[in-house]
């Protein structure tokens, strides 16, 4: 059995890693963007971001003060785990104290802070069952400067690919500089309203260098990205070519009467960390 102690330690370490060490693919993407930018303020913003990423690692501190709302993705195989729910919560509490993280979780109406990053239905834990001999945990701290710009459209089937493209572009253009561009845009197509939003979020866990295996989606991703980057919103909304680093789409089957489109906006700090635990 995988012990409570192991889960607590893993969750806490993953949270710490996620908020301090940005994944390499984003860094490379930002460096590439800097090479192609000629707008002076855009260049200053990207240079500041790259320097910040370096300082976070060097000084072992969170790259952003908004250490997010804790989102947990679990792939659960044929293993036995001790107190999975409470162990995840304890891991988050431990990270909150030790990293430290900012206590971000409040009552939606009284706005009273719980001070430990745990609350009613928080962290949301997504469980995907897999036929493997391990459990895989991903900690995905979501900042709300970007999360506040998400959108859902229950489109008509007749709107098709053009409808998808228009809605995603419209959502990102409306957000302007608010979500800390350069952004990464996750899109979920199909399913139900909640599934489309969930897939939009999961799409952000794909590596930027990873090509979409579905050629139709790959073309759609490319076209949406081009259209967004023509907007001149630029880094932090101060102009430039780099409004979004990448667009990632996941699709699910859906009902014959519908075409749900979910859009999840992510700032440049696309933070997540994953680990597999085997039962041995």
């Amino acid at each position, binding site marked *: 059995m995988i012990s409570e102690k192991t889960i607590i330690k893993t969750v806490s370490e993953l949270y710490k890693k996620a908020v301090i060490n940005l994944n390499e693919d984003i860094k490379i993407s930002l460096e590439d963007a800097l090479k192609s930018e000629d707008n002076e303020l855009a260049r200053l913003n990207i240079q500041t971001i790259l320097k910040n990423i370096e300082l976070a690692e060097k000084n072992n501190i969170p*790259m952003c*003060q908004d250490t997010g709302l804790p989102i947990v993705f679990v792939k659960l195989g044929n293993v036995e785990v001790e107190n999975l729910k409470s162990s995840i919560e304890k891991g988050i509490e431990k990270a909150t104290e030790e990293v430290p993280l900012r206590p971000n979780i409040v009552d939606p109406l009284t*706005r009273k802070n719980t001070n430990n990053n745990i609350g009613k239905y928080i962290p949301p834990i997504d469980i995907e069952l897999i036929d493997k001999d391990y459990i895989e945990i991903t900690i995905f701290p979501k900042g709300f400067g970007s999360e506040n710009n998400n959108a859902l459209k229950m489109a008509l089937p007749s709107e098709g690919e053009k409808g998808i493209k228009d809605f995603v572009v419209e959502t990102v253009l409306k957000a302007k500089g*608010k979500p800390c561009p350069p952004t990464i845009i996750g899109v979920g197509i199909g399913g139900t309203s909640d599934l489309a939003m969930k897939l939009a979020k999961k799409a952000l866990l794909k590596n930027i260098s990873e090509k979409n295996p579905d050629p139709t989606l790959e073309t759609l991703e490319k076209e949406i990205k081009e259209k967004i980057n023509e907007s001149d919103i630029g880094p932090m909304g101060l102009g430039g070519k780099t409004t979004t680093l990448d667009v990632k789409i996941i699709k699910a089957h859906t009902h014959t009467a519908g075409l749900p489109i979910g859009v999840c906006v992510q700032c440049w700090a696309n933070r997540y960390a994953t680990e597999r635990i085997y039962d041995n």
Partner: protein
Amino acid sequence: MINLDVPINHNISNLKAGDVVYLSGNILTARDQAHKRILEEGSPYDLEGAAIFHAGPIIKNEGTEEKPDYKMVAIGPTTSMRMNPYQSDVIDKGVKVVVGKGGMDESVLNALIRNNAVYLVATGGCAALYVDAIEKIENVEWLDLGMPEAIWNLKINSFGPLIVGMDSNGNSLYK
């Protein structure tokens, strides 16, 4: 590059949208809850010439609850538009510099013009970089609002880079 001392005690209408600025002196953090309470109850700090920073820092208490010893861990800007409903009234109380990210609305631009004040943009998400300019936490008010929402009075040295996003002549990089 322009170095500015805050609080401001001279005319800053020469600052133009697009200028890069570094601040030294004292700055007050304030988010939506603090802005709301400033308007309801008055500010615990003198706002004449003050610089306000839309930020919710990560702060560690290395002392006890009775005798706190606060240490700044990370600090960066939060999305300014959440303060749109309160900002112009707060600027009318004497604030000369507002630091945040993402831009603000027309009512704020008009308040900047009216009061010869500026809106500066910090690069979002860069808390590991901006924390280097924080020399000291002088004190804190309204901690009952929670760590992110409290007003932290910070001593800063060469805090930047910040870009003038909206100036006192009505120019805005967000238009």
